[in-house]
């Protein structure tokens, strides 16, 4: 399994506060992704990165920003958390050629 960790694993925060989720990988994979998972919606792509400092929006990017200053780290920031952002967030990585994605364990975020 790819070495992918997410931190924190659980977080409860209040509406209006900034939140940063971290994804760390030890596999030197080029591609990294942030998804959110909600009942009835499956996995939805928020942002993804195809290299250091190279990022692009996914289908539900409003209210989220990302940064990738190193190959191993991909940060997801909620500038001002809202209750609609309560979700389980998964990070994934991909080496590229094989196109397979490896998922991290997920972060459960609750915005009160």
């Amino acid at each position, binding site marked *: 399994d790819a070495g992918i960790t997410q931190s924190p694993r659980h977080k409860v925060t209040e509406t209006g506060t900034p939140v940063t989720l971290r994804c760390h990988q030890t596999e030197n994979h080029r*591609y990294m*992704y942030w*998804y959110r998972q909600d009942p*009835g*919606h*499956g*996995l*939805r*792509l928020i942002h*993804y990165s*195809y290299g250091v400092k190279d990022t*692009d929006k*996914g*289908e539900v990017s409003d209210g989220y920003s990302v940064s990738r200053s190193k190959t191993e780290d991909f940060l997801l920031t909620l500038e001002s958390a809202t209750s609609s952002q309560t979700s389980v967030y*998964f990070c994934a990585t*991909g080496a*590229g050629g*094989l*196109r*397979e*994605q*490896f*998922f*991290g*364990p*997920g972060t459960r975020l609750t915005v009160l």
Partner: protein
Amino acid sequence: QQPVQSPQAVILREGEDAVINCSSSKALYSVHWYRQKHGEAPVFLMILLKGGEQKGHEKISASFNEKKQQSSLYLTASQLSYSGTYFCGTEATGGYQKVTFGIGTKLQVIP
């Protein structure tokens, strides 16, 4: 736009077969299949690339009809361990490894 999966849920008895379908409105380069067990992360099953090849993984196989932008996942002689939610993910032609997932199909295998 998310691909459409059907059925949304299915219950099988051990040993029975099932088919899960996935369709997209976009021209596709690849289709991915993942399985997620409750409380865990999704796990890769297989990928089908443009070219219509059929791939297999134990008793789970899949096909990809690129003309119809459709893929099907075949589970034969189901086992209890097959229970979980199955997601198809599609990568559009020129999609640069950006995968869009469907809402999933919940599969439950009972004794």
